[in-house]
């Protein structure tokens, strides 16, 4: 069901871990739903110089986390903001329909970490912080089992 690229990123995930004193940290998802993604960013001069993640979740969740870190390292904060879940999924040669929500999680994790960075640096108000993460569980509903 998974593409070779997904399996590669799952089997050998890039950038697993924590960053001590990260400039931005974001965590989305919840254990009840079965996946949590935590993203650590190192940002210098508005540019992402390092990214690491920890993920509790399915194969797609791990692979999208891994791919997401690869996609954002070297990008500016503004560029990173624009990385969509579709872009993550595409970079992985696609995901099974039932798993598309996992790429959502990656987009959200990046944004949560970026919001945290902005907040810490006074670039935004707390009010703006992304709060999407809790609806995800239900989003999945329609897509599941479309790939037979």
């Amino acid at each position, binding site marked *: 069901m998974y593409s070779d690229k997904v399996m590669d990123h799952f089997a050998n995930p890039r950038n697993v871990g924590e960053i001590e004193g990260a400039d931005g940290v974001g965590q989305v998802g919840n*254990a*009840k739903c*079965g996946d949590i993604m935590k993203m650590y960013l190192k940002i210098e001069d508005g540019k992402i110089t390092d990214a690491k993640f*920890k993920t509790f979740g399915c*194969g797609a969740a791990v692979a999208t986390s891994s791919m997401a870190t690869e996609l954002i390292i070297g990008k500016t904060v503004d560029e990173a903001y624009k990385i969509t879940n579709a872009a993550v999924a595409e970079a992985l040669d696609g995901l099974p329909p039932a798993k598309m929500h996992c790429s959502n999680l990656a987009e959200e994790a990046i944004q949560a970490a970026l919001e945290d960075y902005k907040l810490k640096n006074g670039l935004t108000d707390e009010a703006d912080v992304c709060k999407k993460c809790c609806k995800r569980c239900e989003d999945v509903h329609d897509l*599941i089992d479309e790939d037979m």
Partner: protein
Amino acid sequence: MSDRLIYLDHAATTAVKPEVFEAMKPYFTELFGNPSSIYSLGRTAKKAISEAREKVAAALNADAKEIFFTGSGTEADNWAIKGVAYANRKKGKHIITTAIEHHAVLHTCEYLEKEGFEVTYLPVDENGLICTKRLEKAIRPDTILITIMLANNEIGTIQPIEEIGEIARQKGVIFHTDAVQAIGNVKIDVKSMNVDLLSLSAHKFYGPKGVGALYIRKGINITNLMHGGAQERKRRASTENVAGIVGLGKAIEIASNNIEQYNKKLLALSQKAIEEISEKIPYIKFNGHQKLRLPGTVNISFRFIEGESLLLMLDMKGILASSGSACTSGSLDPSHVLLAIGLPHEIAHGSLRISFGEESTEQDVSFLVEQLSLIVERLRGMSPLYEDFVKNEGRNLYV
């Protein structure tokens, strides 16, 4: 890495045994006659079906006339439940089942609820057992059916079927049991178990997929599910899956002849697995009843990790198993069985079911435990939940 696949998912399905396949083979291209045909070729097929029916009857201590072949275990469950419900709806509209039934039973009951029936879903305790007192109390004057599985497919817990049957018989309520997981693993006797209807499916005991059977005790009032031709004494229409039925018959015969030995073998493997996993891997929980359990099924929850990832990593090592995680259940939630025995969602997501079989060996167990401990360690190393846990050591995050 192992040079062969270590199949530890016998509760999901089993390979057709070579002897079973050999028995089936002639009925595809040579003895292909329609059993309803009166000429020799047809009569040969009919005879093969009769013999298979005798074998099933012998395995269950039933009469051959009480055995009806179906297209799956699911069909047997659907037939039993809808058939009894519709045939007896003038008597009442109440059905009793449990919260941990297979979806073939649960979704059928939910469908009947939409059709105006009322269903009581009995809860189970942390070991997956129902309370027979509670069952007795749940029986109403309008209760027409009790359907309770013999052995659970995820955690292996075996219900006190004889006692349940006794209660049902005393109260005059029809009793169906889904024995799909039990057949071939534990001895069945529909008479001593006081069972009125019993479902089974060949592919769980080294027979082919796509063929099952329903035992219907003589005299039980049940409508047909499949309308059409006069097959199966006019109870289940469809040109018979002759090869499949022959396979089912052969498989149940082999299983019955061998059941005590097989049971012992599986139990030894399970025990070894449980002991070694307990020793090597912390933060785990074994699910299902310790004793009243299928001999070959072991269900374990690993905290801080998610089941699909675990399965994929095991697969990469050639170990095939299964999980109650939502990601693999085709639904939004983790296994309803694990939730019903009281596991929190996050723990249920991290569950693993291993089920031993025929070709399993002690070496398989050793290899499994070795790989499992490495993989669990690796996944925990990637888990933000484990990170939190370690940072807040001692605080239980899940209660």
